[in-house]
């Protein structure tokens, strides 16, 4: 049995699945239910200064669905905790006392003054919490008041606040990053410079989830108006994976621990985050969609996969795929693939043909001897994989590597020699040696 025990910036938890700072971690009752269900840890919903903020009293969430109403993306306009600071601190203390083996990290967001940060960090320390997470990510509401993403979008502020916190507490400091920037490496480097123990990402993506075409109000609608919110859930996972990988392979931050967040819904999502360099993962939308019981699937799936793939510990998985992320110019141009359609599996929907014909390289037939038949024309196939992407049948179309012979499209011999953009003879713009 694989060992799922996790240690992240010195914080131990029985598994690498934490609940992210969000409504599921807003109150004692929720967090206790999560721990009873088996979650490894929580990042308590962001604390602010008294007087506590107030939330809207209308709908806070909007969703994007697939046709069968599976939730693909969720957006929210909720703010940080709307309860008094002391109430939260008291509850955090009780839960940490009762659940000592679970990770208890507290998310924080106060105005950008050292005193404010020093004061709140001390109060959190008194609860016995394991660490703090600086919320520099929230894109709505709080950012208008100079907090959340307003900080996360300015690397200098990130570095400054991270440093204040590190100077005022022994607790590990995790900086949560907003994806609403151009290059995620800059805020990550700033956190690193400020002495942060780790970064966590991504926070939600600024979004308008939909417009009600009858009322012309954005959703969720507050009395006919709406405001941009933060988008999360399965839809944002690819964005999050890339940002995690960008930080993990940046020489300046490659040693900086990462807590992966963004659309983790299944064990497989979690394993992908780990493989790209995340030390653990945080989950929110999946729990808000299905409830806390999904932790059983997450742990059992990850454990079974680790057993089958031969990984003994979570740490063994971390970063396994990171070295394989390269800049485009380093990809091997001598790697040649051709699509191949398995005629036994083909249901003859013709989608591969029409998308190749209309939008790509005219490399798939629709007829053979007067009969409906879909087959790849190797002379035209550039190996782009679009047909695989649109085929509704698993493994019906596969990309097959050419290892010998002549590529019928280019007329050139297939070479086993690695040659990238900078060296390949086909590229007239290659860098001269």
């Amino acid at each position: 049995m694989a060992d799922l025990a996790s240690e992240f910036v010195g914080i131990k938890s029985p598994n690498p699945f934490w609940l992210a700072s969000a409504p599921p971690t807003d109150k004692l009752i929720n967090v206790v239910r999560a721990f009873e269900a088996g979650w490894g840890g929580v990042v308590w919903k962001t604390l602010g200064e008294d007087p506590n903020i107030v939330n809207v009293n209308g709908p806070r969430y909007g969703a994007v669905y697939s046709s069968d109403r599976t939730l693909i993306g969720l957006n929210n306009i909720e703010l940080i905790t709307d309860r008094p600071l002391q109430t939260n601190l008291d509850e955090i203390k009780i839960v940490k006392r009762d659940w000592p083996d679970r990770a208890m990290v507290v998310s924080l967001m106060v105005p950008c003054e050292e005193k404010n940060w020093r004061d709140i960090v001390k109060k959190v320390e008194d609860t016995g919490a394991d660490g703090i997470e600086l919320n520099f990510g929230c894109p709505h509401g709080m950012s208008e008041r100079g907090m959340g993403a307003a900080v996360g979008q300015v690397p200098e502020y990130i570095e400054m606040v991270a440093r204040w916190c590190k100077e005022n507490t022994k607790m590990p400091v995790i900086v949560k990053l907003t994806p609403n920037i151009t290059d995620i490496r800059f805020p990550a480097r700033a956190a690193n410079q400020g002495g942060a123990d780790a970064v966590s990402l991504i926070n939600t993506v600024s979004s308008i989830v939909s417009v009600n075409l009858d009322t012309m109000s954005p959703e969720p609608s507050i009395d006919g108006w709406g405001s941009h919110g933060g988008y999360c859930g399965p839809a944002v996972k690819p964005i999050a994976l890339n940002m995690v990988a960008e930080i993990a392979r940046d020489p300046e931050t490659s040693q900086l621990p990462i807590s992966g967040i963004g659309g983790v819904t299944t064990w497989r999502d979690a394993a992908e985050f780990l493989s790209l360099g995340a030390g653990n993962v945080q989950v929110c939308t999946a729990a808000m969609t299905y409830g806390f019981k999904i932790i059983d699937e997450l742990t059992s799936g990850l454990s079974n996969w680790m057993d089958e793939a031969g990984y003994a510990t979570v740490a063994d998985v971390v970063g396994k795929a990171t070295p394989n992320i390269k800049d485009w110019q380093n990809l091997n141009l001598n790697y040649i693939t051709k699509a191949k359609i398995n005629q036994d599996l083909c249901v003859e929907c013709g989608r591969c043909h029409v998308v190749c014909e209309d939008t790509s390289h005219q490399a798939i037939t629709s007829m053979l001897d007067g009969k409906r038949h879909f087959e790849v024309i190797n002379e035209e196939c550039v190996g782009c994989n679009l047909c695989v992407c649109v085929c509704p049948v698993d493994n019906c179309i596969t990309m097959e590597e050419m290892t010998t012979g002549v590529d019928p499209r280019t007329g050139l011999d297939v070479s086993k020699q690695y040659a990238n953009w900078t060296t390949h003879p086909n590229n007239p713009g290659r860098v001269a040696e």
Partner: protein
Amino acid sequence: MVQSARLDKLKSDLHAPLTQHDALVEADRCYFCHDAPCIDACPTGIDIPLFIRQIKTRNPNGAAKTIFDENIFGGMCARVCPTETLCEQKCVRNVGEEKPVLIGQLQRFATDTLMATGKQPYTRAAQRDTRIAIVGAGPAGLSCAHRLALHGHQVTVFDSKPKPGGLNEYGIAAYKTVDSFAAKEVEYIMSIGGIELQSDTSIGEKLTLDELKSKYDAVFLGMGLGGVNALGIPGEDMPGVENAVEFIARLRQSNDLDSLQSKIGRNVVVIGGGMTAIDAAVQSKHLGAENVTVVYRREQSAMNASAFEQELAQKSGVLLRSNLQPKEIISAAGVIQKTFFEYTETKGGKLVGTGEMLCIDSDQVLVAIGQNMQHVVLQGSRAPISMKAGRIEVDENRQSSDKSVWAGGDCIVGGDDLTVSAVQDGKLAAESIHTTLENAHG
């Protein structure tokens, strides 16, 4: 209690309509195939992937227009088409999982949605002074009438029955068209304007085809098959032996099911193997008959009734028997007692009796062995229309040998007893008439 429950079945929907959610989920199953095989399999050539995508994008009225563009009877066809041998049989989903997209039910969802608004998605062209006579207010005739009216022609439809709709109104089991759907659909189709209906008017006796030809610019014949094939066996003239089409018509038009229920036989035998036989058998069962047996002379796989229909009958408690041909109906004191059948087998491609007999207790016999054309419509025509095997010969535009007469539906050669094919005939004929008249009138 049991009997009243069955009467409910008689008039309640065979398939519950899809809800909005069901429709979205089912629509999502469509792959939006390139050059989709389902379109080829639809006799009217509806762009099925397009209308399903329109449903999926919550544009059901657009979906309905896509359907009506090719088949103005899309609502009825969604209910009665043997989809499992047409569009759904060709659905590529069958290859992977043997479960096609429910095209028929999606079609119903779309057409019901638009028809509930009472609005047609068409505006009639400016009225022309061309006049066309249509014989028969069934699917062929009204499909032709609608398309001609759309193009601005003035159309008069003659029908021998008091109500329009043809077999949709008189010949299909009630559970396939509940809540007077057939009548509502006709009303919807006629709302295009420019269509005048003359009911209770038979062609051939008082008003002849020649008169129509002289009074109108073109004539379309879509009167179906009025005659009934005879069994040709002793006893078929006895009371208690009834043509299944008439039985169904009586049921469809009755406001008093209780009285019909009291008259249904205890042991009903239905002779035939098509949709009409199944409709009659299932409805007999629902009316309270204790034993209902459909007896077909060939092997079961040769039945015209689709596999779905056969299964429906079996689920309703009807016994299907095959390879039995009727020989004699025995009555006593004016009441049928039993029916004798001879076992058959196929030898050298021919169906022959084996000589072995079977007797089935029966007190009511419904005959559903097909219909034939009543030639009275064509009687007295000065230039006789070319016929083949008792039906009218037409070209690919549904034009007959008489260049002022078009025909479609069951009364033409190759008519396959399907509403959807009749609709296509009417549509093609209308376009051909329109083109012909335009060329003639400049």
